[in-house]
């Protein structure tokens, strides 16, 4: 039996659903009234794979308000995986996500794996960021891309499974 540990950080604009994604993954629940994150909150989740490997995710879920951005290096410094989240109903959050990608490319740990996540995919009728924009941007930057819904649990496990490979 082997054991490995993945340090993961979530970044993105306020209210895009970072905490909801983490809670869905760790507790299997959608909490429509999760609490405002201040600084960052820490959660961990251990997953047993079929080949009897155990993977432990240590997750830093960071605060989204702009003024907290200067604290982000504290949380992404040691991370092997960065999940950058935007809300498909908010073009501003997509722009913000692109800044995070650039910051991590310049200042994240070398070899950091990045994923771009368009959350709130259940709100199709309010969509303002086309899927293709996400796909294109991610491809250009060598990132994994997925659209998720923390509300319906769509693609949440798939998102984290990517980092097991």
């Amino acid at each position, binding site marked *: 039996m082997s054991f490995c540990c993945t340090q993961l950080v979530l970044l993105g604009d306020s209210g895009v659903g970072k905490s909801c994604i983490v809670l869905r993954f760790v507790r299997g629940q959608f909490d429509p009234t999760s609490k405002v994150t201040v600084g960052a909150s820490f959660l961990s989740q251990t997953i047993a794979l079929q080949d009897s490997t155990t993977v432990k995710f240590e997750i830093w879920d960071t605060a989204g308000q702009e003024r907290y951005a200067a*604290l982000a290096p*504290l949380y992404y410094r040691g991370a092997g995986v960065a999940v950058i989240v935007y809300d498909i109903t908010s073009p501003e959050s997509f722009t913000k996500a692109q*800044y995070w990608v650039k910051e991590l490319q310049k200042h994240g740990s070398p070899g950091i794996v990045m994923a771009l996540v368009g959350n709130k995919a259940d709100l199709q009728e309010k969509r303002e960021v086309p899927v293709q924009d996400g796909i294109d941007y991610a491809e250009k930057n060598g990132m994994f891309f997925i659209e998720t819904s923390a509300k319906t649990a769509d693609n949440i496990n798939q998102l984290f499974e990517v980092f097991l490979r």
Partner: protein
Amino acid sequence: MHGAQSKRDLAMELQAQLPILRPSIHTRRANLTVKFQDLYGFTVEGNVDDVNVLNEVREKVRQQGRVWWALEASKGANWYLQPQVSSLSEGIVLKSSLKFSALANAMTLKKLIRKGIPPVLRPKVWFSLSGAAKKKSTVPESYYNDLTKAVEGKVTPATRQIDHDLPRTFPGHPWLDTPQGHAALRRVLVGYSFRDSDVGYCQGLNYVAALLLLVMKTEEDAFWMLAVLLENVLVNDCYTNNLSGCHVEQRVFKDLLSKKCPRIAAHLEALEFDVSLVATEWFLCLFAKSLPSETTLRVWDVLFYEGAKVLFHAALAIFKMKEEDLLLAHQVGDVINIIQRTTHHLFDPDELLTVAFNKIGFMTTNTISKQRKKQEPEVMKELDERLRRLNSLREDDR
């Protein structure tokens, strides 16, 4: 607002739950998790031991109330509201016997406050000793009403963020998470965002203002408490747009930890664990999001009388209490789990405050101010560099 009646009901409910738990106490007490509401209406999850601790705390609160009433009987009503007593305790030379009695009172009061202000007296004592009453008295009586009326219907980035955060502040709380609770919290936060546009609104203030509302009972008093906190009690620029004050406090805290708890500091450094990972939230929410409500309010009792150094005492104490466990931890995740488990289960405020004031050693506001001054240039340099880096990222875009 929910009153004494509902509190009594909650207490009764809790009493009623206990007999049901008794039969299995010996075998399963550690595993049994019960949900109940604490003195301030927050839902708490804990085991039977936690329930017992909370009952003991209730009894201690009652006893402490009796001490306050007895002193009031001997020293006169409102003896504790003498202005400026706090500065006397910092060592001013006194000549007259009148001043001597004021100093004696100040020392009595300091000890008394560290043991806790009875919840019913909190609004009055906090309002006076923090300086909020004085602040309010310098502006026209109608200031708060005028302010809230003047800003009604205005939309700014701050108001948008506040609206987004209201339902996410203390979700599920029987008063805060109701339309009335949201509206009151909104008026306080929006009002303050216009009073100080450098601060506007910073996430974290929502928790602080919400607890102030619960304690102070009136919105206007909660507003003035928030104002005195940000403008006089806490370090400057704690919540302004780059949180520079908060960065300064974190650096001071790291230095203090190396001085006061050198073994822990060295061990955590070896693990590459930065204490800001957990302490940032403590300093920005003043523990409101981490500690049980009565424990948080006991920290605030002292905070409003002795100043912002109290936050360092409490933060150091949390590490100090778990020294042995922390020294055995070999992974960052374990350190965080120890700290989080500790803070969430600190139902007995005295457990924390005894360590905070008896085992950390003496710290004066003066020495902490000096350390802040020392750290400021470094923090400003770091923040400037970051800003320059971000701007260069933006330029790449064009």
